[in-house]
């Protein structure tokens, strides 16, 4: 079985600061990490490999330093890593990104057919959740997003059955391979990489592909040129002008503070107070 996992290196958004004057992201000192949602997909792929055997290839599109993310994935147990990097990819939106990735996946599949593709549910920097579906449509893969659990994988019968999160419930879907899966967060926990794993990953060979290596010929479909969307403005959220009315709790007991909160609701927000307390327990 051959599984390809698409990952993205992202800045750890928990540590991102915006420059107060220029409204630009201050990237200095912000660590780059594997998009956390990708780890659920990578771990699921590794579990399938543990169970069924085969090979896990990781691929990322990004600047040369995205190599770190691939090495990390190798340390967790991926077998091969491909870095898709080319200046021609710069400025790509999700449509152009899915075009480049899909072509690279085609190229991978020509050498060694792919049974399953995993991507993250979404990234923490772009948050779009669009690249996975885009890749699936371009390669005519069965799309299974927001998967909570893989119930059954039948390699001989070429089918897969999954539980997929839907609005208000879970769908149990059965479909054919090859499929593209995005895993829901919290569905598994990434395994631990030992020092030995990390040393091995650091020495592992890594394939670097530019657009030609990936077999991309039409550059009007990738990068800025291939992107229908244009960012026309970037700005900081406007701060709300009204700060909180601070309740004076000086010298009050916890019970008095609690009553003060409830009395404030009663005095200033009578309908809400009514809804909260005029109902049967």
């Amino acid at each position: 079985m051959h599984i390809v996992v698409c990952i993205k290196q992202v800045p750890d958004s928990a540590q991102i600061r915006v420059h107060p004057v220029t409204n630009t992201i201050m990237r200095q000192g912000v660590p780059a990490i594997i998009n956390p949602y990708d780890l659920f997909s990578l771990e699921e792929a590794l579990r399938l490999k543990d169970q069924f055997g085969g090979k896990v290839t990781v691929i990322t599109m990004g600047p040369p330093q995205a190599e770190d993310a691939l090495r990390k994935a190798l340390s967790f147990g991926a077998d091969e890593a491909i870095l898709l990097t080319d200046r021609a990819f710069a400025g790509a939106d999700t449509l152009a990104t899915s075009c480049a990735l899909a072509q690279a996946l085609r190229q991978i599949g020509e050498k060694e057919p792919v049974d399953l593709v995993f991507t993250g549910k979404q990234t923490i920097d772009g948050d779009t959740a669009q690249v996975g579906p885009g890749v699936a449509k371009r390669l005519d893969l069965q799309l299974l997003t927001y998967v909570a659990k893989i119930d059954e994988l039948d390699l001989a019968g070429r089918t897969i059955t999954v539980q997929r999160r839907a609005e208000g419930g879970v769908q149990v879907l059965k479909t054919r391979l090859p499929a593209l899966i995005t895993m829901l967060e919290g569905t598994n926990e990434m395994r631990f990489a030992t020092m030995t794993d990390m040393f091995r990953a650091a020495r592992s060979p890594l394939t670097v592909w530019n657009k030609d290596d990936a077999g991309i010929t039409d550059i009007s479909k990738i990068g800025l040129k291939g992107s229908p969307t244009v960012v026309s403005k970037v700005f900081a959220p406007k701060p709300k002008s009204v700060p909180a009315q601070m309740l004076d709790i000086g010298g009050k007991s916890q019970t008095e503070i609690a009553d003060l909160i409830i009395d404030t609701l009663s005095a200033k927000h009578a309908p809400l107070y009514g809804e909260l307390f005029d109902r049967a327990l």
Partner: protein
Amino acid sequence: MSEAPKPAAPAARGRKKLELDPRLAAYKGVWVFIEHERGTVHPVSWELLGEGRKLADKLGVELAGVLLGGPGDPLDAFAATAHTYGADLVYITRSPVLAGYRNEPYTKALTAVVNQFQPEILLLGATVQGRDLAGSVATTLATGLTADCTELAIDPDNRSLAATRPTFGGSLLCTIQTLNYRPQMATVRPRVMSMPAQQPERSGRVLEAPVELVEDDIIAKLLSYIPDDATDQAQLAYADVIVAGGRGLGKPENFKLLWDLAEVLGAEVGGSRPVIQNGILSADRQVGQTGKTVRPKLYIAAGISGAIQHRVGMEASDVIIAINTDPKAPIFDFATYGIVGDAVQILPALTAACRARLAMKRAG
């Protein structure tokens, strides 16, 4: 957030005034994909009709809903409701193959209907169904799609959709436009736009939009559906009251205090990102840019600092009561009421006081 729609003025970069390709200029009208599951329309669809109405009026075009579904789905009733929320007309595609959402037939059908009737704007809810479908349809249509928008406006210079969304975890906003492609697609999360007032007397047209679909062509089969009633999946987005906790609550045991208060108030429990990342609350309870957007009538933030990533998910709440030990916590910049104190101490007292108030009301 949606209350004060300021026109997003994009920076001119020479391509602002743009003569649309005549083929693209033929795309007219604003469409909202009306999402339904098991006999119920997702409220985000009505929220989008409210927002779509404003866009359509600004452009001087019609607002349409688009409904896909199976023979068992009450599509005509849904269409009638869509009219009361502002739709001038509703396109309906019926097929047994469209009973229950599946990506493949829905992508095929929506792509076909869009290609036939050519709307200039297509809006979908940023729900699991909406995102799954939008990402697919934008690819089959080869057009631009902007996810998770918090503000939609029409650029007066070129009549294109200016879609504003948070980026980098909410630290920045960016306005995105799709200039040379149609339709212009965007998804909006539930509760980001306010629910429009329903006009019960309003009616409109229904247009059947048949699309040929054959079940044998569809590979994925829906084996079963496990509704959430059977599980304890949180329904945060539409909760009236939310009691949320953050890192300030300290040890995991203290989160029981949230659940106690929530039980008395009939509230849902939510949390900020660190709490979810530490596994104290499940991911479906995360409020914020990477979690849910909520706008309850009452939001109690206990030990939550109010970082931008959390703020964007809850600042539209009617009343926000913030309890935090740090008087400089950013949550006090935008909460309705602030209490500088230890939530671990105050929560149990508040729970007891609420319980007493309820008992009093019942007795009285």
